[in-house]
């Protein structure tokens, strides 16, 4: 059995995930993606992971969604729905996704996974433990992650540079 909060969050998350892909305007799609990320953060709160939920809100709703919305404004193209998106392709996509859904739905329903249950009033993971593990056992991973982030941001900056404009400015 599920409770009302779970049902509401599910409707919010899945509904805005569909709007993300099917909205006519690309900007509304980006905003719906942010709402869907907020729904996922709500699931994290239900699952007693408040730190992960706050991280999700900070990174996805705060950074990624804003970045996506800025990109939508930069590349605003007149035809958001193209001719390449034919009816045949759409039907094939719906069949593939429904097949995946049916396959894994029956797998989850029939396997031992459906009998798993959350341990009641068990010791919930506390945030101090996460911090301790991040700084002791997982500290090399943390350093590698920091380098990856820095490298990817420098790479994105190098990609978006406009060399023609820079050369023009140097010559004048």
């Amino acid at each position, binding site marked *: *059995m599920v*409770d009302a909060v*779970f049902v509401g969050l*599910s409707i919010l998350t899945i509904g805005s*995930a*569909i709007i993300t*892909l099917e909205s006519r305007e*690309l900007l509304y*799609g*980006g905003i719906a*993606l942010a709402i*869907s*990320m907020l729904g*996922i953060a709500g*699931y994290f709160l239900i*699952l007693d*992971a408040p730190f*992960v939920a706050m991280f*999700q809100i900070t990174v*996805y709703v705060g*950074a*990624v969604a804003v970045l*996506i919305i800025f*990109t*939508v404004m*930069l*590349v605003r*193209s007149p*035809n*958001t729905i193209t001719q*390449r*998106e034919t009816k045949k*392709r*759409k039907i094939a*996509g719906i069949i*593939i*996704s*429904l097949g*995946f*859904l049916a396959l894994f739905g029956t797998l*989850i329903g029939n396997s031992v*996974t459906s009998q*798993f*249950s*959350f*341990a*009641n009033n*068990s*010791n919930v*993971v506390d945030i101090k433990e*996460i911090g301790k*593990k991040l700084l002791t056992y997982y500290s090399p991973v943390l350093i590698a*992650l920091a380098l*990856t*982030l820095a490298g*990817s*941001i420098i790479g*994105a900056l190098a*990609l*978006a540079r406009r060399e023609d404009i820079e050369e023009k400015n140097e010559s004048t």
Partner: protein
Amino acid sequence: MNQPSDFLIISVILISIGIYGLVVKRNALRLIFSIELIANAVNLTLVAFSRMVSNPQGQIFVLFSIAISAAEVAVGLGIIVIAYRFYKDIDITEYKNLKN
């Protein structure tokens, strides 16, 4: 009380929506939206199992995963911006010169 399989079902639904987007949509930004949906569904599964066995390692892994996908979005959007500059379009079927 919710069970772990409820969260798994939600995650499977989100993944199938993402697969639909990856198959049907030809807009580069919509493809990035789909990838984000799939990544978030996987994070949801990890946190659900972490809650089930009450072990913090799943949550730590999700933290790493969120940071990695933020980096991936930054690079992907940079590529989209530069491709738009060359082709004046963000339809991936227009990107013919990238093929060979």
